[in-house]
């Protein structure tokens, strides 16, 4: 973002990548690609200033160990002002005794992951991008018209700019307009449950411990964030969740405290509360002519607490590597055989992740549960999924290459 180009006169822009969406996924994609020398134009509807405001998104993301390594390898982590390492994960069944316990020291590889406020990630992403000549951010702006041809992507923005790129990346979230435009359908289902998310301040330090409780209506997760605060992810059946969301602050706090308990002393809610229906949505394909889908546009595991971001970071790491490999051979990075490599690489990983999370969800109880998805992706994933994934991988040997370099903390 050598410059924010809405301010200049140049009407015609040319780049390797046109990235639709300047959110967490889109900006990370641009930065990862820029690391390999690929130039991006990122088009984002919102003003970056409003995106980094705490009023816009007070949520936190649980960045799994591998995703954090990507942030480190791309110079993003160093610009994140504060983050809370997850040192220990305790899983309990209701209020019964502990039945699963993960201590990061058992792995010997550092924390399970990092809890970070989304606005701090966005701030770091914009700061990182601003130092990279390969990235041009058009924001606030929108794509009015996009044309995919055999040789290029051509687009016109709301501000009247003409863009020509070799590949378009949809990082537009679950309701991706470009995905629809390309005629890529989605499959999915709803769990009939809603995740309620809020931030809780507490009297005692959390010591980096994440708590996962299986309560009858669904999991209840307490995720440590910086200071004496935790991010709460609380699942209820849809109808009851609507009732809870309608409560006044005092009653809402009481309901929260009943479930939270007093092990961290006195608690109070800080900031707003959010709620999201728990659904699963998968794109039928990850690419079309000159178009590729990443992150939530490709798969909405479910939207709470930014847990799905980890899957998105895996997309980004794989795509950045595929594109860098192709570009270093002078190949057309938007050609169908290049995109097919990304699609093969990601399809298996996404499906096994969904199968594991959805399978476990259904296994654990008939009507508790899909928050397991969130937990598996965001937290326990760091510990448990690699083991389960190894199992899946043995069955499908050869279909999955190695971990993308960025997830192993290596530069492209």
């Amino acid at each position, binding site marked *: 973002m050598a410059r924010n180009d809405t301010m200049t006169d140049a009407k015609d822009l040319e780049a390797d990548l046109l990235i639709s969406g300047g959110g967490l996924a889109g900006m990370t994609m641009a930065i990862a690609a820029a690391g390999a020398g690929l130039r991006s134009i990122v088009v984002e509807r919102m003003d970056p200033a409003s995106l980094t405001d705490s009023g816009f998104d007070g949520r936190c993301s649980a960045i799994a160990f591998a995703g954090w390594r990507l942030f480190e390898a791309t110079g993003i982590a160093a610009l994140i002002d504060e983050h809370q390492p997850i040192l220990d994960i305790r899983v309990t069944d209701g209020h019964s005794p502990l039945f699963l316990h993960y201590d990061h020291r058992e792995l010997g590889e550092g924390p399970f992951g990092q809890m970070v406020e989304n606005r701090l990630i966005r701030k770091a992403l914009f700061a990182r991008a601003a130092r990279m000549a390969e990235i041009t951010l058009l924001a606030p702006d929108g794509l009015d018209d996009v044309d995919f041809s055999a040789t*290029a992507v051509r687009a016109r923005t709301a501000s009247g700019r003409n863009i020509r790129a070799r590949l378009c990346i949809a990082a537009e979230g679950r309701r991706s307009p470009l995905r629809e435009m390309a005629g890529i359908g989605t499959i999915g289902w709803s769990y009939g449950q809603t995740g309620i998310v809020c931030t809780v301040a507490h009297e005692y330090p959390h010591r980096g411990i994440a708590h996962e409780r299986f309560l009858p209506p669904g999991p209840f997760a307490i995720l440590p964030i910086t200071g004496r605060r935790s991010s709460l992810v609380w699942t209820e059946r849809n109808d009851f969740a609507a009732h809870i969301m309608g409560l006044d602050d005092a009653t809402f706090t009481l309901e929260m405290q009943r479930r939270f308990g007093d092990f961290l002393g006195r608690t109070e809610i800080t900031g707003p509360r959010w709620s999201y229906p728990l659904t699963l949505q998968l794109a039928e394909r990850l690419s079309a002519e000159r178009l590729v889908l990443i992150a939530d546009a490709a798969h909405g595991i479910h939207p709470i607490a930014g847990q799905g971001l980890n899957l998105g970071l895996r997309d980004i790491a794989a795509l950045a590597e595929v594109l860098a490999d192709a570009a270093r051979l002078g190949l057309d990075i938007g*050609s*169908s055989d290049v995109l097919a490599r990304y699609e093969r690489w990601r399809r298996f990983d996404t499906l096994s992740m969904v199968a594991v999370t959805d399978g476990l969800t259904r296994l654990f109880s008939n009507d508790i549960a899909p928050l397991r998805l969130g937990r598996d992706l965001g937290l326990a994933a760091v510990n448990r999924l690699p083991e389960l994934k190894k199992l899946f991988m043995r069955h499908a040997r050869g279909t999955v290459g190695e971990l993308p370099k960025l997830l192993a903390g290596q530069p492209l």
Partner: protein
Amino acid sequence: MSEITQSQGGAIDAADVARFSALAAEWWDPDGPFRPLHRINPCRLQFIRARAEEHFGLDAKSLHPLAGLRVADIGCGGGLLSEPLARLGARVTGVDASAEGIAAARLHAREVGLEIDYRHGTAEDLAAGGERFDMVVAMEIIEHVPDPQGFVTAAAASIAPGGLFLGATLNRTMKSLALAKVAAEYILRWVPAGTHDWRHFLKPSEFARLLRHAGLSVTCLQGMSYDIIHDRWTLGEDLDINYMIAAVKPSS
């Protein structure tokens, strides 16, 4: 043919443009008639890049490592190698004996916004013009020419002193007869039947001898193997079917 057609102008009628454009689309469809070349292309480019990096001391991570180098792609067809080489920064001259192939290649380069000097002609024509290139690539072409020594000698003449020759062809072994000829043409139908005459395939030692006679010294031989499970080609030591060869022209 004594002169290389370089004219960009001249009236081309609309029917020709449509025909060349259809031909270009065929050449560039990864699942079209030239699919085998698309599959093998990353491997060829890996070899080219690696040899060029070694020889010219280029940056392994650069997206434009060939910047400043003059490269001739002899037998360029629709430009499947010429375009990547141009993207890597080279100033590329593509030469092919098929006028239609050249017309299609020109159209495609224009569509994707690459500047490539495409010429209708042969290796001999290029040499006669007296230009010298830092690198001459001749991939999957020598098995189609009537006079391999004449071809190699002409290619070598076009290389600047200290420059690099990179070639690729099919070995003449029982395995290549079975796979590259019978399986590829008649069973898998990767290429039209009759595309190759197995008797014109060259053993590595024969290719090397042609290069030596043309005054070049062979520096590298590498094979390409097809991985049927992943449907992709990889570089390796097995020279029995497809292989690539690198040779250097002395500096003085």
